[in-house]
């Protein structure tokens, strides 16, 4: 499987080959240790560089009348700030830097993954699970620190009739612990599925009879993927805001 990945000569390839983690230096089959610099490392670093370029370099002049770059940075800042304010409320503004970081990182990683021949870091559950479980642990610890034991009131739906409450508590506890799983798999699954579909359509282009249809299909799906990249970054961020709101105000 890995051997087919190299050489973009239009030979046969597997749609999942693009997700293989390879060492940057050395051969394809080399073992990958935790310190090995792989293509995943490269594209994660490029995402960070893109954020620095977009958010730090463009706003360093602090122009009163913003230029193009500064306008984009200010629009993104305002967009996320308003989202945190609307969903979490005024007392959630304190945690805005964390949410802004998450949004920018996922957005940049998703968009960089759309560059042909690049590597989509957010298509790996290893990457998104760190983000998802990070949010889960941060929010749970924050809930207990802010509310103490009354944070458990999140699971005890006081507006429901008393006999129903134990049943609802079980459901609430299960749904609470499924959160980090669905949070991370949603992002990874969307990215992976979309990119695999792109490669499958690219594979159809080898057959001359349907090549024009396949190429138009690739273009259309690429456009859809640009949309999905932005929407998944938005969804991840807004769900973080929802979980944060639950931690700050656990009572229904």
């Amino acid at each position, binding site marked *: 499987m890995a051997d087919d990945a190299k050489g973009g000569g239009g030979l046969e390839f597997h749609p*999942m080959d693009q997700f293989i983690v390879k060492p940057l230096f050395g051969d394809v089959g080399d073992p990958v240790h935790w310190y090995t610099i792989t293509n995943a490392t490269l594209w994660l670093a490029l995402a960070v560089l893109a954020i620095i370029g977009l958010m730090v370099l463009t706003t360093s002049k602090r122009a009163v009348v913003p230029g193009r770059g500064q306008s984009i940075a200010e629009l993104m800042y305002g967009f996320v700030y308003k*989202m945190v304010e*609307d*969903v979490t409320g005024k007392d959630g503004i304190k945690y805005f830097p964390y949410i802004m970081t998450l949004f920018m990182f996922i957005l940049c990683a998703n968009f960089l993954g759309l560059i042909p021949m690049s590597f989509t870091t957010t298509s790996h559950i290893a990457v998104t699970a760190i983000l998802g479980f990070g949010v889960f642990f941060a929010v749970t610890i924050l809930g207990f620190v802010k509310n103490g034991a009354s944070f458990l009131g999140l699971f005890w739906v006081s507006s429901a009739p008393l006999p129903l409450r134990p049943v609802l508590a079980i459901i609430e506890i299960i749904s609470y612990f499924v959160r980090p799983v*669905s949070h991370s*798999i*949603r992002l990874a*699954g*969307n990215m*992976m*599925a979309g990119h695999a579909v792109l490669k499958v359509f690219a594979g159809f282009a080898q057959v001359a009879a349907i090549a024009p249809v396949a190429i138009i299909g690739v273009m259309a799906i690429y456009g859809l993927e640009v949309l999905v990249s932005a*929407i998944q970054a*938005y*969804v991840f961020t*807004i*769900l973080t805001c*929802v979980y944060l709101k639950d931690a700050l105000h656990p009572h229904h």
Partner: protein
Amino acid sequence: MEGELAHIGAGLAAIGSGAAAIGVGHVAGNFLAGALRNPSAAAGQTATLFIGIAFAEALGIFSFLVALLLMFAV
């Protein structure tokens, strides 16, 4: 034989993505129906729309994950 069964299972798991499509369409369609009746209230509810779509979509993604596990991990 087991490998073939796993492929059949992966194909069956793909039904889940169709079910998720019904769910997402239901959320978006009802949002649109409500938004056309009261367009002034629609702008404030887009966040709720996306949260609803995300929750409906999550279970479809789970079925995709099951298919992937059957194809590559089992």
